[in-house]
């Protein structure tokens, strides 16, 4: 078993880190306060091909394997303190993976190419007011009529929703079926008549990531915008969640690496009672725990990515990754604030923002509770 990463992967990580540290962290306190999506930084990330990494070159992708993509996301999250921006990129990557796996040639040419180039922003429109963890109780309806589908319903808390050029929508197509075979995925463009969006909702953290409600009222979309087969929705959703959970796991690992580095530096420099606070066991133990969690999360992320590269099911591994990485991230951020003391609580020192951003990590991409249930289910319980 080879645990080392290749020279090419290392160089790629270095270039992403250099880019992100130079270009993506300016005025973050102000941008976080304003809560606006950073369009200019998105374009810079697109020029770095960050949204193109795992996709075929035929569709403007970089043709990299998933492990390399994951290493890249880890590097980006390490160097880019704007967790909202990183989150938006992961949404873009995940929807690109959905189209790459299940879209037809025409859909890939029309939608995957602009995803790779970052020319168009996409969002996953699945969650509803009454359908979060119980995702297959979504009620947004898609009815077939002649050469079209008519969409009616609404979606809630949709990341990238306010800025998306098109969304990938989960809708009920066959209410007669119980869960498997009942839902389908569609592409809905922003110009579609009957498709409207609310203003962005104000959030506790990830404030540069914009989320909103989407409303569909007799929205006609062409038949060709069905992704995969009618009734394949739940299968597509489960498959995509494996990839998404691993990507977010990588993001959490990168963030933890940055936070623990910052905290170690502070613990060495900050002196109280005549010595660095890192010499006190109560502080040192917390930092040691950060390192333990970071390394273990990393191993799970890499293992899960390896499985996907080998076309192997990773439902168990991706859920374990997501639960462990997100819980570790929250604990790391909380300990970082505590170790930094009053400074950690001050906005200008940018420690508290990571904590606010981290709280949602055990909510999106499947709550910690639902992922734990999945793990238990896969163990036969």
């Amino acid at each position: 078993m080879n645990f080392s990463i290749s020279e090419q992967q290392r160089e790629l990580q270095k270039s992403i880190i250099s880019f992100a540290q130079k270009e993506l962290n300016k005025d973050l306190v102000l941008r976080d306060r304003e809560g606006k999506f950073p369009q200019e930084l998105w374009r810079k990330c697109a020029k770095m091909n960050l949204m193109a990494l795992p996709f075929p070159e035929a569709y403007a992708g970089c043709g990299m394997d998933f492990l390399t993509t994951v290493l890249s996301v880890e590097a980006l999250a390490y160097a880019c303190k704007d967790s909202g921006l990183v989150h938006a990129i992961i949404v873009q990557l995940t929807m690109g993976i959905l189209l790459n796996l299940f879209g037809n040639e025409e859909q890939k040419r029309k939608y995957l190419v602009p995803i790779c180039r970052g020319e168009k922003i996409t969002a996953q429109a699945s969650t509803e007011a009454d359908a979060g963890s119980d995702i297959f109780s979504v009620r947004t309806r898609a009815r077939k009529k002649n050469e079209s589908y008519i969409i009616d319903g609404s979606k809630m808390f949709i990341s990238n929703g306010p800025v998306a050029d098109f969304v990938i929508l989960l809708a009920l197509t066959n209410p007669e079926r119980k869960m498997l075979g009942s839902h389908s995925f569609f592409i809905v463009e922003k110009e579609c008549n009957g498709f409207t969006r609310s203003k962005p909702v104000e959030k506790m953290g990830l404030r540069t990531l914009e989320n909103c409600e989407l409303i569909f009222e007799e929205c006609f979309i062409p038949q060709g915008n069905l992704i995969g087969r009618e009734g394949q929705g739940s299968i597509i959703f489960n498959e995509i969640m494996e990839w998404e959970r691993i990507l977010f796991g990588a993001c959490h690992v990168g963030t933890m690496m940055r936070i623990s580095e910052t905290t170690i530096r502070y613990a060495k420099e900050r002196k109280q009672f005549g010595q660095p606070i890192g010499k006190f066991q109560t502080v040192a133990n917390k930092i040691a725990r950060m390192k333990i969690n970071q390394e273990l999360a990393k191993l799970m992320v890499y293992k899960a990515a390896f499985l996907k590269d080998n076309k192997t099911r990773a439902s168990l591994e991706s859920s374990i990754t997501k639960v462990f990485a997100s819980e570790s991230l929250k604990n790391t951020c909380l300990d970082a604030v505590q170790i930094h003391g009053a400074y950690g609580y001050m906005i200008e020192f940018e420690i508290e923002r990571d904590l606010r951003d981290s709280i949602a990590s055990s909510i999106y991409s499947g709550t910690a509770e639902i992922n734990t249930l999945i793990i238990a289910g896969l163990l036969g319980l």
Partner: protein
Amino acid sequence: MNKNDISETVKKFILEELAPDCNANELKENQSLLDSGIIDSMAVMKLLDFIEKKFQLKVPVDELVPENFETLTAITDLISKKI
């Protein structure tokens, strides 16, 4: 392994892991597992995990369609094509 063996192996898994309240005699070859609720989205994950490990094969994404999991016959056909 012939089709009958495959079918029996899958049936055993379904009865033990997915539908423990179901009687073996009640699970027919061409009974809809989807409409009866035996196979839902969680069960598909478990079934796929089982199939790929037990039979040492991979089910590509373009074969991840509800019809391939509709009945015991459909699942058996899916597996036997790949062995």
